[in-house]
């Protein structure tokens, strides 16, 4: 076969230039299978870590910072990526120049992220009022009213959505649907959200209250609070 490594005593090619130095490594099935098993194990681990955080937060009523969540998730993902790159993508057996290209690209990515985060995190250092300059209400701003679609949005888009829904199904039906969508089921998953409780770490800040139940007679069911 063409990838034989017999270039030791070839008088026409004493340095093995014509044979290819690293050649082609055939990675054994056992190695590939082992890597797959480890990758699946780490997938289970990353889910378990996330579930454990939720359990710890709700059982001991502590608020685990998001950095812990992100740190664990990204660390496990990095280990998995190193495995994929080394064995499935064969960087372990390859010319080092391919690894170099990949690492340089990751360096550029890190720089990109680092400078953005530094900017964002340091805006309030000189002038504290610059910390929270993004306005409440997301993208449903007036300037979007000139879009060819949804041109009727005049305020925050979540308020618009709530009003549109109420106008369509009626206030009585809203309560029924709200109970179906929001109530009674476990948090997470494909299902609806459970409201925050004393033992649940779901943050209360930032809730819109756009469709909160209102006392009878209140004219405006979707005001901010």
């Amino acid at each position: 076969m063409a990838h034989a490594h017999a270039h030791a005593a070839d008088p026409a090619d004493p340095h093995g230039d014509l044979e290819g130095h690293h050649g082609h490594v055939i990675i054994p099935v056992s190695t590939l299978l082992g890597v797959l098993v480890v990758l699946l194990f780490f997938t289970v681990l990353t889910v378990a870590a996330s579930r454990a955080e939720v359990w710890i937060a709700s059982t001991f009523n502590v608020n685990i910072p998001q950095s812990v969540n992100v740190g664990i998730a990204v660390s496990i993902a990095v280990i998995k990526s190193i495995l994929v790159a080394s064995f499935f993508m064969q960087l372990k057996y390859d010319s080092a120049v391919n690894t170099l290209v990949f690492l340089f690209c990751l360096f550029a990515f890190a720089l990109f992220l680092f400078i953005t985060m530094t900017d964002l995190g340091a805006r309030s250092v000189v002038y504290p009022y610059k910390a929270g300059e993004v306005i409440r209400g997301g993208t449903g701003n007036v300037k979007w009213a000139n879009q060819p679609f949804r041109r009727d949005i005049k305020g925050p888009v979540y308020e618009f959505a709530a009003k549109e829904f109420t106008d369509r199904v009626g206030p009585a039906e809203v309560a029924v649907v709200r109970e179906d969508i929001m109530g009674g089921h476990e948090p997470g998953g494909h299902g609806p959200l459970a409201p925050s409780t004393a033992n649940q770490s779901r943050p209360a800040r930032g809730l819109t209250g756009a469709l909160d139940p209102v006392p009878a007679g209140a004219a405006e069911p979707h005001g901010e609070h």
Partner: protein
Amino acid sequence: MTTIDAAHRLPRPEDLPPHERHVHQPHWRTKEAEFDAAKFGMWLFLATEVLLFSGMFCAYAVFRMLHPDAWTNGSHYLDWKWGGLNTIVLLVSSFTMAMSIHNAQKNQQGWLKFNLCFTILCALAFVFIKFTFEYTPKWSGWFFFLDPALHHHVDSGRTALGGLFHFVEGYGGKRPGSLFAYPFAESPYEPIWWSVYYISTGIHALHVLIGVGLISWLLWRAQRRHFGPGHYTAVEIVGLYWHIVDMIWIFLFPLLYLIH
């Protein structure tokens, strides 16, 4: 007629399978040089792929830092079971892709085709799960009739496509940006979460579909015995592409589904 016994004659080039006939292009010194250059070129392309997704990861970091509550609330709409299943599907497909290179190197033509087919099926399963159980209900409120989450909700009774999809009132409308129409938003910044979610998973899903096309092309060529120990460059570089798609999902899964 010829007097030489056919069994003792060297095979004519046209009798050989294409992978044994492969000759490198004249501007390369060796077949290996050609192979290494193709692989290096693919790595350069993969670097641009990582930079493409780096923009989305950066947007993710910026908006999660600005509006952590929107991320916590938004992630609760996602089911880690579908995300986890899709992670397993992609990891297994990465394994079968690596196996198909192994098969080409060992001239196991049948297994090569089997592993390529299996990889395509995994890719299609990934996209099917993504669209049927995740995008469609969230975007529109229409649930696939086999979706286990359908039984957690009050079925409105409206069906589509001959009963394949059932409508749940109030569930849909979880859309990006100004298309947002979900009436029960808990955070005012949820439309931004959905923008980041749809753009990152959407472009990833597009990559999976492109992968289906590329691996189908490999299968078409494998059927014609284009790949074997002497030549399998295309299998190797499409494999690299497929693994980077897998690697990006390895990061997207915990960052989108496992937040709380």
